[in-house]
């Protein structure tokens, strides 16, 4: 009675998104939190020119801070009532679980980043148009895919018992550093900050795509080992 991975992934993703729609944790807690972070950056940096110049980096930093909360939330849903154990016992294909949770996390991250970019345009006075917008959207899609894959993967390891959650930032931050570096540079190109052209941003997006591919594949192969007891 084993199901195909894609059907399982779809069921898991739908389930996660439906739970989010009902509980509204992202909209009610994470979005306000990251909005606040963006405002705090302005307090701390206190210089309109500087803010405009570094806006790209601030958006991605705020994303990373919220990533931890989102990852812990997506696995809290599973461990609250032992659902992850039940999924393991039922012999549900872990690759399907990985893809499903990664897709749900991807969607939630996209919603978060959309808000953050709007905040950046409003608060830090950057703007983006034409080819810059194409670059930005591609960058966001590739970077978010990478973040969703690594978040799900390491989140699976640190889920649940015995003070493992505190391990998540330590494990995750070094891994997402390439995303921070490349996404920020591509975003700055999209905003045409500091005299950059849009064309200079594309190599960074290529690295983001490689990152997403590597960890998508790596995640599919490793997830079952990391959620195993």
């Amino acid at each position, binding site marked *: 009675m084993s199901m195909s991975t894609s059907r399982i992934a779809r069921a898991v993703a739908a389930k996660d998104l439906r739970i989010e729609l009902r509980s509204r944790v992202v909209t009610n807690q994470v979005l306000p939190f990251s909005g606040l972070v963006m405002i705090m950056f302005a307090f701390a940096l206190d210089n309109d020119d500087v803010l405009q110049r570094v806006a790209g980096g601030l958006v991605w930093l705020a994303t990373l801070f919220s990533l931890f909360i989102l990852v812990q939330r997506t696995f809290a849903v599973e461990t609250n009532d032992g659902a992850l154990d039940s999924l393991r016992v039922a012999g549900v294909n872990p690759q399907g679980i990985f893809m499903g949770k990664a897709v749900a996390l991807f969607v939630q991250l996209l919603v978060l980043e959309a808000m953050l970019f709007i905040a950046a345009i409003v608060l830090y006075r950057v703007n983006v148009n034409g080819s810059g917008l194409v670059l930005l959207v591609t960058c966001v899609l590739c970077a978010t895919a990478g973040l969703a894959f690594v978040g799900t993967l390491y989140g699976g390891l640190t889920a649940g018992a*015995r003070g493992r959650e505190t391990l998540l930032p*330590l494990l995750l931050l070094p891994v997402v550093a*390439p995303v921070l570096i490349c996404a920020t540079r591509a975003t700055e190109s999209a905003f045409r900050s500091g005299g950059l052209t849009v064309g200079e941003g594309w190599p960074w997006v290529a690295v983001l795509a490689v990152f997403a591919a590597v960890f998508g594949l790596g995640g599919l192969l*490793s997830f079952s080992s*990391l959620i195993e007891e």
Partner: protein
Amino acid sequence: MSSETQSFKGVGTPTTRMYGLMAVIALGWVFLGGLFFTPEDAVQGDAVRIMYVHVPTAWVAYLAFIVTGIASACWLIGKKHSMGFDRVAGASAEVGVLFMAMTLLSGSLWGRITWGTFWVWDPRLTTTAFLFVTYLGYLAVRGLGGTAEQRARRSSVIALLAVLEIPLVHFSVVLWRSLHQRATVLSPDGDIKMDGLMLFTLLFGVFGFTVLFAWLVSHRQRIIAMQDAQQINALDAAVTERLKEVQA
């Protein structure tokens, strides 16, 4: 799975003693040569002597990373999941973290003396810093508890993910720093003219530190073996205790 009942004489064997001796000799030479016999650099003066520590420890740090990666892969792939590979992976990571810290410290001091800054965003230094933090995470995962096999499974996967991640980090940082076109060299060891004795001392240092690494890893992995055996003994004792509970 039997316990070691003879009195503890240490984890050395004739082989390890031999290369322990080699390490002492090589490092002794590097110490003396590095501090006294080799000339100072035309530009940097005596500060160049930090190179004799910094370059070999950087090399060993990366070697440790590679050894952990290969040992983890061997554990995963082998049908028998031989625990020796897991122990070597763990020992190499621990020793590696030590050498990474030494690399960062010596690099930082060197930068301070020659360039006036404790840190430069040099790709190699930055990647070493990432390697350091990543391996702290790896060691934390090893400490999550459970049986030795559970530990081996989790940490081997984490190690292989690190093997995927570190080149990506390095490449991103290289790309990043290449944007900031600096006319001058990015790291202190770029412009040194190597005199024959300096080169020899440097290479001998690389050799010496590598042998030291091997010595530390083989001892550490034996200690891990003993810790694992001790865990099994404790388990045996606990099982016997429980069996007695029922008979009482």
